[in-house]
């Protein structure tokens, strides 16, 4: 009885491992056959002058994060909170993000020292 159960267990593990291997082989096959498509996409991106890969289509600043600025998410009213669904999935890119939320205990640098 016990040997049958362990046999079934190992058969299941072997089946899953085989499926995993097949998935990997399939991915490799697709990857090699997609080279032509990638090249076409690259050519298209160069022709249209794309800036970003578009992951979200709702807000301008998450659609093109490299072209986003510090003001466009808040244009509805003065001090509006950013409110597009993709806003929390695609955070501001590093070149925009202020450091202040990461080290609030510093109290922020003195504005006078940063300017002429």
């Amino acid at each position, binding site marked *: 009885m016990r040997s049958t159960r362990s046999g079934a267990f190992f058969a299941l593990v072997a089946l899953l491992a085989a499926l995993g291997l097949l998935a990997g082989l399939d991915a490799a096959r697709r990857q090699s056959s997609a080279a032509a498509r990638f090249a076409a996409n690259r050519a298209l991106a160069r022709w249209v002058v794309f800036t970003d890969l578009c992951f979200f289509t709702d807000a301008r600043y998450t659609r093109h994060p490299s072209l986003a600025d510090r003001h466009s998410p808040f244009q509805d009213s003065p001090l509006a909170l950013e409110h597009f669904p993709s806003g929390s999935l695609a955070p501001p890119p590093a070149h925009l993000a202020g450091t*202040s939320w990461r080290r*609030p205990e510093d109290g922020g640098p003195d*504005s006078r020292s940063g300017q002429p």
Partner: protein
Amino acid sequence: MTTGLRRHLRILAYVAGSLSRRWRKNLAVVGVYGLVVFTLASVVVLTQSLTQEAVVALGAAPEIMVQRLSAGRHGLSPVGGVGAMARIVGVQAARARLWAYHTDPATGETLLLAVPEDGRLREHEATAGRDVLGRRAIPIGGTLRLGTHEGDSLPLTISGVAETATALESAALINVSEATFRQLTGMPEGWATDLVLSVRNRRELLTIANKIAQALPDARPVIRDELVRTYTSVFNWRSGVIIAALLVPVLAFILFAWDKAAGLSPDERREIGILKAVGWETADVILLKSYEAVAVSLAAFVLGTGLAVAALALPRPPAILPALLGWSTLYPPFRPVAALGAYQVATLFFLVVFPYLAATVLPTWRAATVDPDLVMRT
């Protein structure tokens, strides 16, 4: 005293003894359980606090804001458009509003430059939110330097602290005169950021907005009540996403609670056996274990929820806050006022206390219905 009440009191006295006998284990359970409640409660408290922050900030906003779109982006509105807006039936008053964001080059923070309606500020004079001044250690009468759009530095004399209604306003608002505003932003004379209308009858808002959209095809009317609704739903959506991400620790805890409760320790089994042998009914034993579970869950619930509210007062904002804020982290750091409604407390209570009760009472019932002699022997 009735017999029923006396029975409950005696069982409660026994619960107190039993909990203190195994205090190490119970403390560990309350600690882990409290941590799970704290994580969930933080999301709930912060969501409610931010929604309240947004609703309070919009409370003073005009009923309709009209923005001009140019090339698909927010464009400047001609001040001359005010007359046409004021003539629409149902509009009480219309005015042009001047406001703009300003990036502090030193910190990268987004601040708000606004021209107050009363227009009492002189040129090169400014008032700012308490936190704006506090972060820069500028006293009243001190000088705040802002960069103009041409790259020069413009010194402004701080004549007072601006009146603010929310934490974000206190952290980001700078009031200036119209001349200074135009000098800082480069906005030409005759143009404003947007036009705002006050409307007395709420039922006319949609009609007026439609009239504006028809008369000015490049205008975008924003109704305040719709903004409030958007905020409420977006923060609920975001908290849902975060809670979904937190499901793994919550499930791990439920597994832990189930494992702890389902596999009653041999000591607990023996205790149940002895209690039954000395004459306790199955119902008494289940009541005993239920009281124990209620005591543990209530302690963890109060601990977790209390910590979540208290965490908002700590110098470092809770780690979840930036995830809820999204791009609003481009503003200077601000701490929303903690808010928690009865609805949120009840949701949290049913989400965390009931599964634990169920996980504890079921195995007890199984153990309590077995023959005491058998339980004590094994």
